[in-house]
């Protein structure tokens, strides 16, 4: 029998591990803001499914979220490939349109007479305390799928992250690898929905990886550091929001993770202080 606190901690740890790993690949592929759009695009799926089944069936809600999240990601790719619009415009259009639909559904849900609606708005900013035992099992399965897929396609993902031109030259199926990465981002966002919340999910994909990038040039070291940093953030965030009921988990985690990144940017071996110091030495000699 595990206590509520350890159950929640287990849930957030899973989130920390998956975002830590997948975040490295999105950062290196310069896809950071795609996570933001995907996370916002999950809202219509989440609320739409809820409007149909009218109960908090966790697995089905997540399926809905994954569907619209993936649809949003595909639309972004489609717009950037077929029109003259740049990627940022495509991201903005998809994000705001999907979120608009989500808000329409959300206001419909809030007008429902039943008491079932409680909890849907917790997905916006995340509240780890609402995790149930069955939810944790779903999260664990999803995390295993994500980690398994990354181990399986490790070499391809690595090459495409560091040298896309070389990947093309040796004939790797670039389109397929990008599609895999897209699906991995969607799954990671789904894992984090209830804990971090969909509004701040993108930041949590970026900051641990960005912090880790400051300390190393090796991919496997970067991934372990990224997991380490994101676990610090999730654990501290969980402890704080568990003890103070009105503090949502998501923002707490994001603040801690960003602090780690900013400190890393300043004090890491390739960071601002070291660069300045080296420059000064060079000027003197």
């Amino acid at each position: 029998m595990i206590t509520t606190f350890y159950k929640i901690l287990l849930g957030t740890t899973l989130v920390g591990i998956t975002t830590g790993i997948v975040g490295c690949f999105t950062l290196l592929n310069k896809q950071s803001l795609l996570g933001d759009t995907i996370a916002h695009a999950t809202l219509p799926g989440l609320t739409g499914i809820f409007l149909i089944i009218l109960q908090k069936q966790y697995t089905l809600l997540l399926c809905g979220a994954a569907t619209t999240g993936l649809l949003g990601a595909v639309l972004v790719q489609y717009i950037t490939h077929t029109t003259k619009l740049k990627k940022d415009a495509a991201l903005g259009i998809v994000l705001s349109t999907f979120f608009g639909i989500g808000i329409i559904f959300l206001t419909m849900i809030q007008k429902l007479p039943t008491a079932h609606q409680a909890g849907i708005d917790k997905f916006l900013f995340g509240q780890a305390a609402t995790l149930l035992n069955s939810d944790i099992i779903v999260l664990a399965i999803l995390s295993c799928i994500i980690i398994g897929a990354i181990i399986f396609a490790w070499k391809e993902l690595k090459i495409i992250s560091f040298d896309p031109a070389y990947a093309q030259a040796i004939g790797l199926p670039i389109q397929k690898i990008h599609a895999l990465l897209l699906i991995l981002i969607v799954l990671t966002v789904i894992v984090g929905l209830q804990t971090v919340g969909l509004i701040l999910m993108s930041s949590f994909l970026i900051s641990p990886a960005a912090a880790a990038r400051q300390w190393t040039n090796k991919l496997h070291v970067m991934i372990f550091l990224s997991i380490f940093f994101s676990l610090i953030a999730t654990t501290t965030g969980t402890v704080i929001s568990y003890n103070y009921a009105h503090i949502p988990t998501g923002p707490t985690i994001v603040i801690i993770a960003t602090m780690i990144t900013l400190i890393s940017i300043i004090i890491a071996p390739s960071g601002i202080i070291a660069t300045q110091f080296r420059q000064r030495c060079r000027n003197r000699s």
Partner: protein
Amino acid sequence: MTCMYVQLLLISVATALACALPGNFLILRGTALISDALSHAILFGIVVTFLIVGNINSPLIFFGAIVSGLFTVTMTEMLTKSGKLNHDAAIGLTFPFLFSIAVILINLFANNVHLDTDAILVGELAFAPFHKLCIFGHDCGPVALWSMSAILCINITCISYFYKELQLTTFDSLYAQTMGYPPRLFHYLLMLLTSITIIQAFHTTGTILVISFIVTPAATAYLITQKLQQMIFLSCLLAIIGVLAGFLLAHHLDSSIAGSISLANGLIFFLVMLNKKIRPN
């Protein structure tokens, strides 16, 4: 009742026009998502100033919001310039950080005191007509309508006065530099205009849907035309159509107006895009 409906419509049209104008330049410069960053960061400025001043209607809140908006722009640029992060990671790191601090501050100190997290996300357009502007006891209509129209006038004035400079710095910043128009200055002017627009629009549209008002009409116009002047006029027209369609939609669904306008904007964009695809010119 109809009177209130007309007022709502006028507020929405003013908001949509004011947002669409700077949106054109943001789209052309490839910095559309800075509107996302600004709208989140501005909340930080509003909350912090509110906690210091203690009055949500204080004009100081406006300045606090502008300062935090420009701070975000400067911070992302510094992070990008330092070479430690690429541009979109720098944006994605900065604004959620400020936004998170704002959300926690609201939850700790200001919940239910004119600021709550739901209203921030979706706006409270439906309540806008109830805040009336009274001059010498005369009812002069909703405050939101007056303030939004003022912002719209500022945007029209600035963009028409600096039209040549904005055009030049957008399309050829190197040439603009040699001609003596510093691109950075006009970049910051554009950021300032976007910030004050978002601060006002924020009350009616909320933090996230304001992106639709800024980005989508301008992007649709960009698909249709190549000329800047035509693009600006088209984006205004599309913004008005979006508002009207959104109102119809909201009425039928009995749902959020800002959400429906975003959906209408998106639908118009996808229709134009598919039309271009099927019949290229």
